[in-house]
């Protein structure tokens, strides 16, 4: 398992938990890139606004400046992403200085090779000044944003968000066990064992990503319990042949989704119904798809809460790189999650002391 704490040191993780005096963002994260590009363009616009006397020249000047700063920004981000591993091993001061120096170097490179300085009428001093200032301001901003999401706050949020099982399910399951205990003691035993496992998983420290195979095992135990209650009414179709069992996913993501599907899809249905669970890998992402029938005289509400919970946890673990979408047709409901494919990497369990 890769804990968030370790992910802080890891290029793949989003939740930064290291104890740098300055907290660097994850330079390989799409969210970071978007924010940096937005900020750089906003700053360019501010500079143009400040330097322009007439409004007419404004759009032209802005496009010109943007065309100048964007390649530099992108180049710096690529370099930072590529060198991130190396960056994290540096001393705090060097790690903070590196992005600034890289931005300055990129600016110099661009000014020398691509857009010779004479044409833009800039001096190297000006270029160095602006690139260093931009990089420093952005670093400070990321530091501040990450500080707002301190380890304690993030962990507290994750703890609070940890999926909770519906009390409805617990009491009905216990009731079902009591119902079969005389006629089928073995079945009752098995059900209690499954219930114990399920609650152990629920009460665990769920702040770490877990392999998808663990989630599948848990989901199967859960479904076994539901089958005790619902009998033949519950059909499940698994499509997991091409599923990457080693992919890391947020803990307790699959089970609440299935619980939702049972609660809203199967229970209100007069007859039997089928839940479809599809797990697959497509290139660098993992796809999770759940379908359930619709159209029973529904239990309204509640659905969105479980989904909002999962959505927020995906955001905490993967930032903008994971998506959750839902789709409702006349007779089916579909939840689709896509998240980056990350594997368990045991050899990378670097300790955090190196950073202190």
């Amino acid at each position: 398992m890769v804990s968030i704490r370790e992910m802080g040191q890891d290029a793949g993780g989003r939740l930064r938990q290291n104890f740098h005096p300055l907290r660097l963002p994850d330079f390989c994260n799409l969210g970071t890139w978007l924010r940096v590009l937005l900020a750089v363009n906003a700053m360019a616009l501010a500079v143009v606004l400040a330097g322009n006397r007439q409004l007419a020249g404004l759009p032209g000047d802005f496009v010109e400046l943007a065309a100048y700063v964007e390649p530099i920004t992108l180049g710096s981000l690529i370099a930072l992403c590529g060198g991130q591993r190396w960056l994290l091993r540096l001393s705090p001061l060097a790690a903070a200085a590196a992005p600034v120096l890289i931005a300055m170097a990129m600016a110099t490179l661009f000014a020398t090779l691509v857009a010779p300085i004479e044409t833009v009428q800039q001096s190297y001093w000006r270029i160095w000044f602006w690139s260093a200032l931009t990089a420093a301001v952005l670093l400070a901003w990321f530091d501040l944003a990450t500080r707002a999401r301190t380890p304690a706050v993030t962990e507290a949020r994750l703890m609070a968000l940890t999926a909770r099982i519906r009390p409805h399910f617990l009491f009905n399951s216990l009731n079902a066990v009591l119902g079969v205990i005389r006629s089928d003691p073995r079945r009752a035993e098995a059900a209690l064992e499954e219930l114990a496992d399920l609650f152990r998983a629920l009460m665990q420290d769920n702040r770490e990503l877990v392999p998808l195979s663990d989630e599948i095992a848990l989901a199967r135990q859960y479904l076994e319990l539901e089958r005790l209650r619902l009998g033949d009414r519950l059909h499940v179709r698994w499509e997991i042949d091409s599923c990457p069992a080693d992919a890391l996913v947020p803990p307790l993501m699959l089970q609440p989704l299935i619980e939702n599907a049972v609660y809203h899809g199967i229970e209100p249905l007069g007859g039997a119904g089928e839940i479809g669970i599809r797990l697959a890998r497509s290139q660098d992402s993992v796809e999770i798809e759940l379908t359930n029938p619709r159209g029973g005289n529904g239990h309204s509400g509640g659905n969105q809460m479980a989904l909002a919970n999962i959505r927020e946890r995906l955001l905490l673990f993967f930032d903008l790189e994971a998506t959750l979408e839902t789709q409702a047709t006349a007779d089916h409901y579909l939840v689709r999650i896509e998240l980056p494919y990350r594997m368990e990497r045991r050899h990378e369990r670097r300790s955090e002391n190196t950073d202190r």
Partner: protein
Amino acid sequence: MSAGLRILIVDDEAPARARLRNLLADLAAEVPTCVVGEAVDGVDALERLESVTADIALVDIRMPRLDGIELARHLARLPTPPAVIFTTAFDQYAVKAFELSAVDYLLKPVRAARLAEALTKAARSPSTAAALHQASEEIAPGGRRQLRCSERGKVLLVAVTDVIYFKAELKYVTARTREREYLLEESLSQLETEFGERFLRIHRNCLVARTAISGFEREYDDPAGDGEGHWAVLLRGIDERLPVSRRQWPQVKALIG
């Protein structure tokens, strides 16, 4: 079977029904009972009660097709309704409503002692129809969602929202939906009281869904077009028109604007 309380168990989960059966058997010495039927949902319960009589119905709240609250509303309309005891795993909202209106309920997993107590109480002084009505209105306001119609021993349900109009004919009321007509054992005035917000009386023998009215047209009784004639309602979804009585016309006109 000795004489005892006749019990109908209504729950969609087989183990839950088994549990109640076990408990009732355990309590036999204390509270003699006999289970006259087990139903898997509200519709099944109504069908079973066509052929058997029960003194007490143990009714789960969450069930497919016709849930416990809705079933209780239908049971209350039977000539000799069974006393209803609700069972639920966890419905805070419903439980609160039951507490408020003194309707009896059991929490799952049900305990034998609690079941015995509820049975004894239900046999002596069952929850009143008024209490049941109050609780169900609290939990699901706006009266029944579905109307019951019996056809050859089968219970059919008609969603109130599907009904275009009710018409009284002799001793029956028919409900017309887009697809077909259903014979109901209801009275028009009761329907009007229960669903007055949704339906409008246009004639002594007719209630029309307000949303189904697409317009009005004047009709003349004799082909020459003489006389005053009367107004007729044009309906959305079906090619029928319904006469508005002279007495109702002022109210209809005022309501439609």
